[in-house]
């Protein structure tokens, strides 16, 4: 298993841009919903009061979703696992900034999304790879893609993966992870308009590739 440090070739995930994601997360909390899970709310209060053991509830509740989001960005199980771990640790380190009463989910989703985006940027910058937007994901797919037995799902997955990077990430968050525009905007630090723009461009390309599956009468 790759460590967080090895993933970045010496730089730790946290050193890259987590502060930015945490601060933007803080701002975005003002428009979040209230926490409707009383156990979660109690766990957050306990963690803030210094009870590290209560953090386990939050980790167990959100691990699967956090890993899925991370995997959608990096398309690699080992990196997704490391990102999820790092996201939870960073969230814990910054729990004092978290507003009590808010749901924990949007915050941890935003942190892991930012870590994933930073990882991609870091790889592009420092590995000097000659890549197209979709190439790294495609390469990793072959080694690490979970078996998609359903032909329809495989077609959709391939079509999404062929999109340019930000369109791919936004499309995946919208289509696969089922987030709304506002949530995606908060998670990616993009404006809602930019998210809609990425999604609109992605839609056009996906429609071309998947015309035989979903028809073409919705322009």
């Amino acid at each position, binding site marked *: 298993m790759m460590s967080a440090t090895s993933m970045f070739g010496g730089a730790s995930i946290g050193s890259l841009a987590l502060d930015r994601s945490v601060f933007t997360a803080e701002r975005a909390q003002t428009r979040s919903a209230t926490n409707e899970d009383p156990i979660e709310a109690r766990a957050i209060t306990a963690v803030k009061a*210094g009870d*590290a053991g209560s*953090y*386990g509830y939050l*980790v*167990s509740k959100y*691990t*699967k979703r956090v*890993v*899925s989001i991370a*995997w*959608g960005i990096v398309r690699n*199980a080992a990196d*997704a*696992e490391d990102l*999820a*771990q790092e996201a*939870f*640790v960073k969230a*814990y*380190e910054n729990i004092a900034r978290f507003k009590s009463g808010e749901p924990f989910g949007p915050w941890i989703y935003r942190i892991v999304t930012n870590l994933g985006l930073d990882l991609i940027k870091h790889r592009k910058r420092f590995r000097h790879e000659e890549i197209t937007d979709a190439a790294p994901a495609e390469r990793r797919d072959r080694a690490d893609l*979970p078996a*998609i037995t*359903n032909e*329809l*799902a495989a077609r*959709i*997955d391939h079509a*999404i993966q062929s999109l340019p990077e930000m369109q791919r990430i936004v499309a*995946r968050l*919208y*289509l*696969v*992870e*089922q987030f709304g525009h506002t949530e995606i905007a908060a998670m990616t630090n993009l404006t809602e308009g930019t998210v*809609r723009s990425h*999604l*609109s461009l992605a*839609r056009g390309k*996906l*429609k071309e590739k*998947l015309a035989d*599956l*979903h*028809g073409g009468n*919705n322009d």
Partner: protein
Amino acid sequence: MIDDTFLEQLRDDARQLQYEPDDVMTTRIAARVRARVSEEAAGGVAQLLARWFRPVMVSLAALSLAAVVGVGWLELSPEPAPGLDAVSSSQTVDVSVGGDVFSVE
């Protein structure tokens, strides 16, 4: 408008592409996070103690330094104060016994 039938239908179909980490991975993540969080918590206590002890240690160090300087200054003094022997030998004590007075050095 991008929230059209095509996207909604695609969204329904794409839902199944969510990555499902297995139990081994989720357990491993939980264990690693627990370990890291415990380290953080331990580090926090250590830092708290350090914050309290640091001024105490600085004060003690300042007192020690003052004591060393003071002793050094006394030792370097050209006319040392007379010791107990010197004081006792230079003075006599008069003791009165049965009307007689004895002088004891």
